[in-house]
């Protein structure tokens, strides 16, 4: 083994991470080379000094500050999770008493409509947030086989990623976002200068819906389910072209 190879091996040897079949050669070289054995000595000494002297202790009250922020966070999320249900249920109870069967149907409709409104607000917020960043994507590529594997291990499902450059919707890339209190996949497409966010996550069991276009805060949205996934498309692009993209996905 030569010095140059030995340098990397030396570092791994010190850390106990050297591959077994290199170990003998590395040890033999270091023992016979004064330069490398000096390096080994220095590295070890520097490591020891770093361990004793370079650690910067956190302020004493940091743990408490974090705990109180987490409590606020936990309260906020239970409120969010509990809010719609209880309130809608209470309203529905009144409605059922007053208008019987038609009220029950109305309740189911209003519940899913409320749910959709809430999601739509989440989706608009996520879209706007993405436009405020330097880049709308964390993985920038127009190739679906680059973007798709990027999601591996980052979310618990594998999103379908299509490059639609030929159809006039070039893929910009993907990122993670947070919608409906969960981590979801966001794919970004472009149509001319318009940014289109596609959000997707596994649909709740038995939930199926046909494409439903809507408009909020000047953004066009479409939501649908397909292949067990809930999709949301959002853009400042006109509704007709957005529907074209929906059909392609």
């Amino acid at each position, binding site marked *: 083994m030569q010095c140059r190879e030995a340098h990397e091996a030396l570092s*791994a040897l010190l850390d106990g991470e050297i591959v077994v079949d290199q170990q003998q050669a590395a040890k033999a070289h270091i023992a016979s080379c004064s330069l490398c054995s000096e390096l080994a000595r220095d590295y070890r000494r520097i490591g020891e000094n770093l361990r*004793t*002297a370079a650690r910067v202790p956190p302020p004493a009250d940091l743990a408490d500050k974090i705990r109180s922020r987490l409590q606020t966070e936990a309260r906020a999320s239970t409120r969010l999770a509990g809010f719609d249900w209880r309130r809608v249920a209470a309203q529905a109870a009144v409605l059922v008493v007053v208008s019987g069967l038609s009220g029950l149907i109305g309740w189911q409709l209003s519940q899913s409509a409320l749910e959709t409104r809430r999601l739509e607000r989440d989706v608009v917020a996520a879209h706007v947030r993405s436009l405020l960043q330097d880049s709308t994507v964390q993985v920038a590529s127009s190739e679906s086989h680059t973007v798709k594997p990027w999601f591996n291990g980052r979310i618990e499902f594998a999103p379908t990623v299509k490059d639609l450059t030929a159809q006039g919707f070039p893929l910009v890339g993907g990122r993670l976002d947070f919608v409906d209190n969960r981590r979801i996949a966001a794919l970004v497409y472009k149509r001319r200068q318009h940014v289109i966010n596609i959000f997707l996550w596994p649909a709740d069991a038995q939930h199926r819906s046909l494409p439903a276009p809507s408009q909020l805060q000047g953004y066009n949205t479409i939501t649908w389910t397909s292949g067990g996934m809930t999709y949301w498309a959002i853009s400042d692009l006109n509704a007709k072209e957005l529907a074209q993209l929906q059909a392609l996905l």
Partner: protein
Amino acid sequence: MASKTPFEELLTPHLQAAFNLAYWIVRSREEAEDVVQDAYVRAFRAFASFRGVSAKPWLLAIVRNVAYRAVQNRKRTANVIFFSEDLKHRDKDAVSEAVAAEPSAESLLLAADARQQLLAALGKLSVDYREVIVLRELEGLTYNEIAEAIDAPVGTVMSRLSRARGELREHLQRQLAKDEPNAV
């Protein structure tokens, strides 16, 4: 007070490591404090989807991401003209700040000026090198854990550590030569 949640049980032991990593990326105690708080809130939100074996590298990966974003934001908002000047001050401040921070009992074993030199040398490394040194030498993570924390292959961790150690040693030797011109 309610008993500790699984989240707290799993992640409070790593508060020191989280703060230390954040500090060595952003180089300011106050900013590191914000970074760690944000990182814990993020970790808390993502905790339901945490399936890993070891919480430490998972948490440190989040801390690192938040810290990098903080550095980016700072760069973006910094006055372009005074930026490099500002950075110089920051580095100097950061080192003296770290030195001024209450030393642990162990660190008293190392003479104050030696400690100062060591911190300055570590501060001179690029952040890619600095973070692997911090994760390995200060936090004792395995190569696999470092790879997870910095989202890079193990081979990259190995070569980066090796080069980082070489550079750190050179910085220290250069300082030594400067301080004691007759010694070398």
